[in-house]
Structures are given as C-alpha cells and as structure tokens.
C-alpha cells in the first residue's frame, strides 16, 4: 500500500491541469488486495483479553494507562470475555492449579488468535522452579512472542506487541472456509532479539554509572 497524509490546514483543493488529481486519488483511494488489507486491519486492531495472573499484570496495566498508552498501537480494547478477543497476554506465573483454566480460556478465543508470554515465569518458570508452577506456558499453549523481564517494563511489552503486529502483518489467511489445505501462510521463523540486537549491544563501550541519577 502506498499512501500519505498531509495536515488539514495545508491541503489545497485540486487544480485542473497538474498532478493534483493524482494526489487526490492517492489520498482517497487505496489500491490493495483484500488479503493485504485484512492483514493490515488485523495487525492494527489486536484486542487483548483481560487476563492477568500476577505481578506482570500490573506492568501490563501500566502499559494500558496514560504514560505508555497502548491505544497508540490499536490494542486498548480490553475484552472481558475470550470470545471477543484476538490475543491473550499470559501476564504472570502459570500455576498448576490455574493451568486447566488458562487452557480453557485459550480454547475459547476465536481463530485467528495469538499468545504473548509476558515475563520470566510465563516464559520458562523463571525463578520459580517449584512444585506448584508450570515451567513455562509453552508446555501447553503455542506462544507467538516471548517478552523477557521479571516483570518486563511496560515498554518491553509494547515492543513485544509491535513484534507480534509485524508478524501478523505478514500473515495471509484464506477469506472464507476452505476444504483441505487451509492456505495459511505463516510468518517465517524469527531470530530472537538477542541475536538481532546482540552486535549492537556488544558494541556499546560506555555504560552509565549507577552512582548518578
């Protein structure tokens, strides 16, 4: 898609005989395949399910409120029921007693659905290698994005959300029921951020001292 915006007070009325008409068309008409547009829409209106388990949920809530404002990414419509949501953020520790409940809630999300695993506990059990904790939500759910941290900062969650959006934008799905092959073009496997950003991080030579604010 190729489109642009200009400030309302600077927009001129189109004149005959120059390329303004071209511009007008570009501003108002979008030439796009339906598949692409649906992928674009999906990417920018991810509705999360209102689901939280522990500490991470507080940072998830912080991402929703004023300072970080997840609405900038079209993801502020928190749904109270899984049936209306596109995405579940596993924010917190997954407990053995809670696991069947999480499973049921995930099953109730309608396709297409995505999972963000937020925080060390949901990623791998984290510091809780203990009898009552499942060692990572991926033991029973397919995870799309892992956000590291204990708890991750709200910015980290937003980055995770953007990574998910990027990959959803690349996915293509059939527009109606198809028999046999579903024809879903999945995203390609991504490298973890550690690999992508590693060289840049290692290249850092000056680290801020903790002695100063």
């Amino acid at each position: 898609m190729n489109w642009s915006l200009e400030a309302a007070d600077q927009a001129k009325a189109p004149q005959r005989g120059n390329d303004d008409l071209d511009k007008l068309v570009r501003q108002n008409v979008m030439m796009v395949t339906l598949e692409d547009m649906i992928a674009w829409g999906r990417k920018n209106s991810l509705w999360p399910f209102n689901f939280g388990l522990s500490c991470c949920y507080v940072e998830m809530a912080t991402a929703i409120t004023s300072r970080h404002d997840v609405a900038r990414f079209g993801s502020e419509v928190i749904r109270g029921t899984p049936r209306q949501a596109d995405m579940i953020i596993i924010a917190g520790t997954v407990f053995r007693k809670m696991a069947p409940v999480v499973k049921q809630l995930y099953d109730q999300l309608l396709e297409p659905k995505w999972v963000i695993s937020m925080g060390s506990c949901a990623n791998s059990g984290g510091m809780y290698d203990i009898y009552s904790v499942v060692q990572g939500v991926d033991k029973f759910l397919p995870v799309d994005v892992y956000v590291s941290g204990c708890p991750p900062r709200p910015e980290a969650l937003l980055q995770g959300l953007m990574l998910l959006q990027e990959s959803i934008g690349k996915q293509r799905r059939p527009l109606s029921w198809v028999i046999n092959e579903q024809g879903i073009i999945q995203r390609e496997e991504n490298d973890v951020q550690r690999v992508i950003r590693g060289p840049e991080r290692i290249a850092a030579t000056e680290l801020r001292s903790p002695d100063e604010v």
Partner: protein
Amino acid sequence: MPTSTNTAFTKQNRQSAAHVAVDYLQSVLGDRLLCKQQTVDSIPTLWFSRESIIQALTILRNESFAGARFEMLLDLTAIDERARINRQEQPESDFTVVYHLMSFSGNADLRLKVPLHDSDLRTPTTCDLWPNANWYEREVWDMFGIRFDGHPNLYRLVLPPTWKGHALRKEHPARATEMEPFALNDEQTDVEQEALKFKPEEWGMKRASDDSEFMFLNLGPNHPSVHGAFRIAVQLDGEILVDAVPDIGYHHRGAEKMGERQSWHTFIPYTDRIDYLGGVMNNLPYVMAVEKMAGIEVPERVKVIRVMLSEMFRICSHLLFYGTFAQDVGQLSPIFYMFVERERIFNIIESICGARMHPGWFRIGGVAQDLPKGWDTRIRELLEFMPPRLDEYDSMVMNNGILKRRTQGVGAYTTQEAFDWGVTGAGLRATGLEWDMRKQRPYSGYENFEFDVPIAANGDCYDRCAVRVEEMRQSLRIIKQCVDNMPSGDYKSSHPLTTPPRKENTMQDIETLINHFLNVSWGPVIPPNEVSMSIEATKGINSYYLISDGSTTSYRTRIRTPSFAHLQMIPAISRGFMVSDLIAIIASIDFVMADVDR
C-alpha cells in the same frame, strides 16, 4: 479524618501482659506445661500437649491479663521437625503446630506449640475460638497432612484437589524439575476442571429454600473485578447474596518451600514478590528477622533509607488500590490519573534501586548500594507535585455521590469482628482502632518520625478507602522527614554476617579472604534460633517467622500475610448484600493474590 493522640504502649507494658499470662497459665496448667522455650525475639513460647492446648487457648482468649486480652489468632502454622538438628530442651516432636496469639490491648505476643508424632498426626480444631483458624488449619492440613479434629470442612486450601502429598513436608520435592514433567492433555484438563467444580453440598449449602431456588454464581478465577487469580462461589436468592465461598490457591508460588532451599541472602528477591505491590517493603521484615538472629545492628542511614523506600512503595500500592477501587464501583478515569504518580515514584525507585516493581534492594545488614548522587531532586519534586493531586482525587473520588452511595454502609464490620477474623492494617483502623505497628512497636527507626495514624469510625468500604487516602499523606510526611534528615554514614553494617561482606575487610590475609569467599558463595551461616518479625505492610501485618538450624538456609520460613486473613472474611461481611456490593467489598479489601497464596 480523626486522628487521636497516640496511646503508646511501652515495651515494659508489652512484656508484662505476656508475662502475666505465662505466670497464670503456669499456675493453672503448670503440670501440663511441657516446656518454656527461649527464642531470640523474646516472645514467650510455651509447649502444651494436644490434650490441653484447647484449655490453654481458651484461657488466653477469654481471660484478662494485666487488663489485656489476647484478641487475635495472628497465625497458625506447623513445622516439620524431623530433619532438625538443633532442638535443645524442646519436647520430642515430628511435627509441631504453632499458634501465634496477639494482644492489641496489651501490645503483647505469645506463641504456643503442640508436639505431634508421625504415627498420629491430629490435634483438636480451634475454629470455635477464633473463626479465622478455619483457613489456617486447612492450610496446615494441605501442606503438612495434620488433621484437625472437629474442623467443619478440612479440604485442601492451596494446592489443587487432585494433588498427591503434602508440599511442606521435607520429603516432598521442592523443584518442578524434580517432579514428573507437566503435561496437559484434554482428558486431564477435564479431570482437573471437574475437581475444581463447586459443589454446594460440600459446604453445607442447600440448593433451595422453602420458597425459592438458589442460584450459584461462579466468579473467577479469572474475572476483571477479583484482582488476580481468585475465585469466589456465590449463593444467591434472587439478587441477594445468601452465602459465599472464597476459593484460593490459584496463585501459590511455594514461597515458604523456596525459603528452605535458597540461602538467607538469595531468598530476598522472593520476598519482593509476596505482596508484589509492596516492593522492597517486603524485604524489610525478612532482613530484620535475619538480622535479629545474626545479632546485626544496622547504621542509622540504612534505617532511614529503608523507611523512605518502604513509604514510597506504600504510596504506590495505595494509589493502585485507590484507582481500582474507584474503577470497580464505576469510575473509569481516576486510575488513569493515579498511574501518573505511580510512574513518577517508579522513576525515583528506578534511579535509586535500578528496578521498578521488584528491586530486592535491601540486604542482610544494610542495603545494596549507597544512594546515588542527586537522589533527592526527584523526591522533592514528588513532594511538591503530589499533595494537590491528592486533593483533586478527593473531589473526584471521595466526594463523588455515586461512589459514596455504593460504598457507605456496605461491608461494615466492628473492631471485635476484625479481631475474630485476623484483620489488620487499614481494615482494622477503619473500625476506629488506632493500631499501627510503626507506632506501637516501632521498627527501623519509625519512633523518630512524626506522623499520625489515620482512623475512621464505621468500618465500611468507604472508610477503608478513606483511611488509605490519608495514609498516603502521612507517608509523604515521613518521606519529607527522610529527605530533610538523611543521616550520613555507611549503607552497610560492619558485622561479619553482613551479606555481601564488606570488600575492604577481605584483602587483609588468607583468613579474611576465605571468609569472604564462603560468605559470598555459600552465604552466611545464621546461628540456630527462632524469630518472628512483624511490620505494618501496605495491607496489614506482614510477619516472617524464621527458624534457623545453623546452616546457610532457613529450616522453616513462615510468611504470615495480611491478605490471607482478609479474604477469609468476605462471606461474613457480604451476606445480605447484592452482587454489585460484593464487588465493592472485594475492591475495598485491597489484597494481592500473591500475598494470599504466597
């Protein structure tokens, strides 16, 4: 907000009520008293056999000692003694049940213990004396497999109903990776879900009355208004709440078992995550308890730094409560304003500790680092910025007519009921009792600060909120005094058990180097003893009961949390109200599930 002058109990007075009680028990039940145990926290500890424990507890509950009563069963727990080495002069026991009683009128504590043997793990219930014993006994049954005869419904409380074994027994595996790998197929999901199903008959509930059929409503364990993984099953007659059964354990992270595995030092980050809104304030009772056993005196600067950061977290926690409370009764906007302050405070915390929610920044014998240069600038800005905002919230939330009508007169209880259910903190002060650990039993130098203890009169949802709002102002006062009078000096004690040890002491000779190496790699060895340390946490009395067996880890870590007691009270204060009132009541309690299930 009425604040009366503080009727300070002296330490002498505090001991006297306990000593009078001990003397009286000795004169009445002298022949049945098994042992008087000495502990470093100087709480009198008496051993009774299970045949006479009820008699002893009844006396303590009903009689008056030097004008004081033991109103509250603060804690009830157990110890698996089978692997313990240092048990000098204690009666033989495989499992010990521990009762921790607290007197508010006499400002005193008393600990009673009952020895039990492996072959016959049962003791009579105390539910008739203190209603809050119900959950504590269920928890002990769940974790240790000790039966309480006469208990109305001795089911598992914390672990899933399908669990095998008792987790806090020494033979139970601690690590998930020691156990069979977790898998969840559809069949197993069904089994687990079936086990979690609420069956009214098990709770003595009828499905219908003479003229109507009851409806059972399941709220949670994932519901927007229950603040975490908490479930409550409600019995309704039309819209009126007949009864309720709270169900917990969806947030059990095994913190107490973890305490037996981590070294004294490496357990500190786990305490942060107990009341996960309280941040470093959770470190405080733990490190103070260890310091007491180790005999460490911390420098003044450490005390003030600890107080300052703890009070900042108190404000943070109260702000979150304030916002969600308003949200739960229908005001969506306040929380968006309140998170602005939270972010400001987190900025300060981050600039000092390097992390936002769980800095884990206190150390045994000090704090992790000294305050950075220019640490006070942002705090002074906050002290300027926040008071007018709090006034604005008063007009936005506290004076709002709808909020008042939804919360005033809802979920009220008296001081006596609060004692019966083990309610502490703002929930207790809202009933009109001026009791704050920071005033009554000052720790970490709170005796040097000027602040008032806000109280209210009606003990309803509105008052609980009002008390917390005022507490934020008092916390700001304390923080101001910290900033203005921050003592100079060390951020770490010079005691040899301070962890991590002081670097400058290590480079002297091979001996000091070895000591340093051991203290850092294995952690400090704390001398065998028992200690209990309580603080006024964000939600009430948070208490750590630690037992050292003279090793690098704790033998038993008991964490008494306020929210656990508070949740148990919900049915008692919400009967006769409507479902929407129940939401207001739940919101007004201010709990965190990690603080309930640990």
